[in-house]
């Protein structure tokens, strides 16, 4: 039993890999596919829950001090690739599993039949996400980034149509270039320190000669640019709104999580290198001002957005900006609220993306935008040997449970999402923003930092204010203007995931105390990376405790 539990960290990577490959090669039976896909996601959820449980010192005989190390192939740390689970990684894996479950169930309504390969790509995307959160090796991080990006290219184009292909073209070009930057950064870091293991790296940086040190910092900066492209920092984020807005609803929900991978990488590597007192003030300033510009861009975009889809994309940008800004303050009290905000905003934007897919159906199908994102003409489906799906934007004729109070549900879900995204009480968005403001205000005010704190406070309030104004306008048009509206038929498997995510956010509000305690300990272990470094180095695989 104990030895079995030791292999837990590798499961979130192996399970979707196997499931994705099986779906690809097994006979094309629809029932089999969705069974496999659902089973894989449920296993991931179970594993994530177990990881969360084990990491909180519930089983000290397996992992001490809240860090679990897994040596792949039983090679010891600096030579082999390690997977490391700490509280932050366990939380991100959990978040991935939750969003994946909601989005997968939602996609079963009809999106997964629009084109072949959806389920395989979805599983590979999950593998990349989990891998990026769990790995303790820089080059391995690159590989998992590529895995998740390659599948995200396919998923972004899922459903095809000119607007998706056009946005996808830009998305792929920008991210391929960012991958090259990633490689250059990793190569420079390896060339200077001779290691790719993150923990080993943090130790060796201290020993570098001054000349090598500056080259190392240049490499780290280039690596940082690659992460920032993924995180959507201004001015590297112009690809983001059109790609996310054009993506199909369940894909958009997972993409909401994908931007946070960049932020995760910044947090992970930033805190590890901070222990080696690398000169980070330049990076902090860059993070802060870059984040501020991103917030401004996001808020302006939110105000200008004419459609809910674009609004949600810009709100993803604004939240990424807020996260980067508060990371730039390097205030250790702020880390736990940052993580809380990250969790809450991922759940909220994922729910919002799916809700957007439902409300789009309310618009008359004759409007231009519906035509713009309509699926491919029949020829393509014949070419792929796929039956043409029902138009996802029209009130479908197919059999489904029509919820009598469809409009009531949509309106209620919309209001909840507004509260979450804008950070108004009583939902978790408010708790998160309040905790952030509290940490900023109560922090010992240094002379230089104090006005930075005020800028952050202004930014937090501005995002909320901008979101309320923009959403009031969009909401009025969506729900109160009677002309050109049809009451959509909703199916239970589409409504369920949206409700599930919103209920989770409500749960997050109700259980804010325990969650914050967990995140506080996650933040503490992030800011004391010595434990992480020591455990990675001393862990010997295969020794039963």
């Amino acid at each position, binding site marked *: 039993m104990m030895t079995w539990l030791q292999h837990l960290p590798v499961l979130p990577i192996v399970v979707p890999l196997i499931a994705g490959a099986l779906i690809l090669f097994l006979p094309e039976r629809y029932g089999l596919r969705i069974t496999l896909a659902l089973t894989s996601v449920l296993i991931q959820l179970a594993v994530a829950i177990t990881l969360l449980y084990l990491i909180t010192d519930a089983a000290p005989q397996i992992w001490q001090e809240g860090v679990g190390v897994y040596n792949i192939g039983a090679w010891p740390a600096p030579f082999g690739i390690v997977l490391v689970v700490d509280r932050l990684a366990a939380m991100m894996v959990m978040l991935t599993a939750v969003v994946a479950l909601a989005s997968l169930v939602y996609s079963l309504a009809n999106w997964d039949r629009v084109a072949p390969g959806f389920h395989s790509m979805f599983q590979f995307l999950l593998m990349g996400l989990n891998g990026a959160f769990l790995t303790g090796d820089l*080059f391995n991080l690159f*590989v998992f980034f*590529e895995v998740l*990006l*390659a599948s995200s*290219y*396919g998923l972004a*184009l899922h459903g*095809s*149509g*000119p607007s998706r*292909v*056009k946005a*996808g*073209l*830009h998305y*792929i*070009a920008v991210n*391929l*270039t960012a*991958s*090259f930057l990633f*490689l*250059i950064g*990793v*190569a*420079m870091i*390896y*060339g200077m320190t001779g290691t*790719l293991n993150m923990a080993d790296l943090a130790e060796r940086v201290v020993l570098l000669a001054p000349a090598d040190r500056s080259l190392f910092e240049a490499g780290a900066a280039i690596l940082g640019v690659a992460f920032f492209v993924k995180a959507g920092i201004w001015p590297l984020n112009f690809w983001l709104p059109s790609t996310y807005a054009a993506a199909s609803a369940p894909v958009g929900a997972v993409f909401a999580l994908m931007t946070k991978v960049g932020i995760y990488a910044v947090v992970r590597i930033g805190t590890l290198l901070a222990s080696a007192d690398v000169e980070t003030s330049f990076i902090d300033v860059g993070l802060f001002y870059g984040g501020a510009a991103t917030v401004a861009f996001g808020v302006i975009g939110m105000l200008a957005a004419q459609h809910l889809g674009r609004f949600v994309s810009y709100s993803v940008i604004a939240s990424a900006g807020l996260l980067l800004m508060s990371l730039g303050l390097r205030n250790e009290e702020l880390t736990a609220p940052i993580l809380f905000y990250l969790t809450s905003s991922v759940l909220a934007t994922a729910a919002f993306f799916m809700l957007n897919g439902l409300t789009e159906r309310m618009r008359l199908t004759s409007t231009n935008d519906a035509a713009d994102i309509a699926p491919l003409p029949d020829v393509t489906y014949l070419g792929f040997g796929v039956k043409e799906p029902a138009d996802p934007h029209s009130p479908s004729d197919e059999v489904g449970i029509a919820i009598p109070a469809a409009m009531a549900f949509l309106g209620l879900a919309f209001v909840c999402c507004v509260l979450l995204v804008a950070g108004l009480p009583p939902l978790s968005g408010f708790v998160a923003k309040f905790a952030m403001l509290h940490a900023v205000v109560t922090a010992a005010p240094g002379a230089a930092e104090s006005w930075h704190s005020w800028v952050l406070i202004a930014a937090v309030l501005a995002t909320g204010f901008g979101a309320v104004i923009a959403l009031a306008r969009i909401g009025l048009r969506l729900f109160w203007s009677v002309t050109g509206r049809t009451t959509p038929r909703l199916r239970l498997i589409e409504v369920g995931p949206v409700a599930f995510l919103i209920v989770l956010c409500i749960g997050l509000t109700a259980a804010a105390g325990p969650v914050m305690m967990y995140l506080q300990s996650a933040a503490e272990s992030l800011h004391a990376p010595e434990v992480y470094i020591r455990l990675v180095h001393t862990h010997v695989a295969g020794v039963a405790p």
Partner: protein
Amino acid sequence: MELIFATAIGVLTGSGVWLLLRPRTFQVIMGLALLSYAVNLFIFGMGRLVTDRPPIINADGATDPALYADPVPQALVLTAIVISFATTALFLVVLLAARGLTGTDHVDGREPE
């Protein structure tokens, strides 16, 4: 050798970036390909340029590391080649789809006026 190597990386990167910023999709994909060559050479160079030293240690137990080249960057290059090859192929498909759907090979999907 270092000079030639560095010049090659520089020329490849320069041409790659220039092509990447061009308006036609085919130029963009050529730019990406050139950039990936440059990056692969760069990774290789990060293992230091040496001649006559194998990257694989002999089985007879000779273990003076000075006699061997660093094998890690070579392994990294292999991985990077495979990944960039695959993503370039995928980009090519998207490029063709964009050409088919928009009727133009401009990256924005429409000709500038």
